[in-house]
């Protein structure tokens, strides 16, 4: 995989999740950050830190990105969410504009 096509999402505990850029762009917030011209450091390094999102939530979010891409291509499966995660997941989704 070419270096330009992946991004690294870093959770509050420091755990790193490496995903495709295309998947990350599902989130408007991340998309804005990566596509703005004029010297955003992470546009070059391809990493984004989220000091407020825990690793478990971030993992679920990454899974969501991929599921969302699949869904838009026609594969209509279900996305299962554990009830305990729901509240935090929704807040993270709000934050990330997903």
């Amino acid at each position, binding site marked *: 995989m070419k270096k330009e096509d992946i991004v690294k999402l870093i959770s509050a505990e420091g755990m790193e999740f490496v995903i495709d850029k295309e998947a990350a762009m599902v989130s408007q917030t991340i998309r804005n*950050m990566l596509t703005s011209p004029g010297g955003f450091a*992470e546009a070059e390094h391809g990493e984004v830190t989220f*000091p407020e999102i825990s690793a478990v939530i971030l993992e679920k979010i990454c899974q969501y990105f991929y599921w969302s891409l699949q869904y838009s291509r026609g594969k209509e499966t279900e996305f299962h969410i554990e009830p305990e995660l729901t509240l935090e997941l929704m807040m993270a989704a*709000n934050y990330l504009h997903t």
Partner: protein
Amino acid sequence: MENKTIGLDKGWDYMQKGITKLKRILEGLPEPPFTSEEYMMLYTTIYNMCTQKPPHDYSQQLYDKYREAFEEYITSTVLPSLREKHDEFMLRELVKRWANHKVMVRWLSRFFHYLDRYFIARRSLPTLNEVGLTCFRDLVYQEVHAKVKDAVITLIDKEREGEQIDRALLKNVLDIFVEIGMGQMDRYEDDFEADMLQDTGAYYSRKASSWIEEDSCPDYMLKSEECLKKERDRVSHYLHSSSETKLSEKVQNELLVAYANRLLEKEHSGCRPLLRNDKVEDLSRMYRLYCKIPRGLDPVANIFKQHITAEGTALVQQAEDATSNQVNFIIILLV
């Protein structure tokens, strides 16, 4: 997620640091670009300040502070730098400041994006983008547009006299007029186009009155055609395309319509001599120039009719005098 609330002052303090950093980058001062952490922290601060429970819900204040940030930057930095320059330098400075401003709007909108999503939608307020543009329009554009328009028209007249001017600069300046209308052409039309047309009319009227004295009809027409072509060229290079018809009409008016009679009736080179001497190229130019003007061909057609009548009568006379031979008569008529 964060549980402690952030006070407005503390939160805004943090934002202010980010905004100052942005301003330094825009001014070209040495400043490391934003890192992902800084961006996220700025965005997160806004997010937190907006999602806290009232009375700590600072959305309204943040919206006002956003506008204030622009106003402050404009009044303290942008306006003074524009006021101290004139003419072409002022135009360059304006273009630079406008580009800067657009970048600033884009970045601050990203930071404050959370406001856009909920607060603004709920209250149907103008978006952050619009607020930014409005600030520039009300503070900067209002003050300088008259001077800008004069500077631009001076440059256009210079170009008409044959001097080289910076066309790219003019295009950028005129784009500002169009963009600041925010979807409508009224700024371009009222603040620039109207005066430009008037000045064009005056310019060509002066030129025409001197040319009509000195030049023959074909020469005058050549010059008119040249001018029309140059003006069309000008539109394609930097004026807005909507100006083309109005500009052509104005030029045609001043050069061709106002002096139509004098031109065509010229003693040794007007329409009649051209017809008599079969100057096809000049005649076709005359047709090309006048056919675009409504009813412009009427005087030409009149003269043409008179010419044919005169020639025809002369021929009839000739034929009658020469011989009563029917065949010859017909042949002479037909040739």
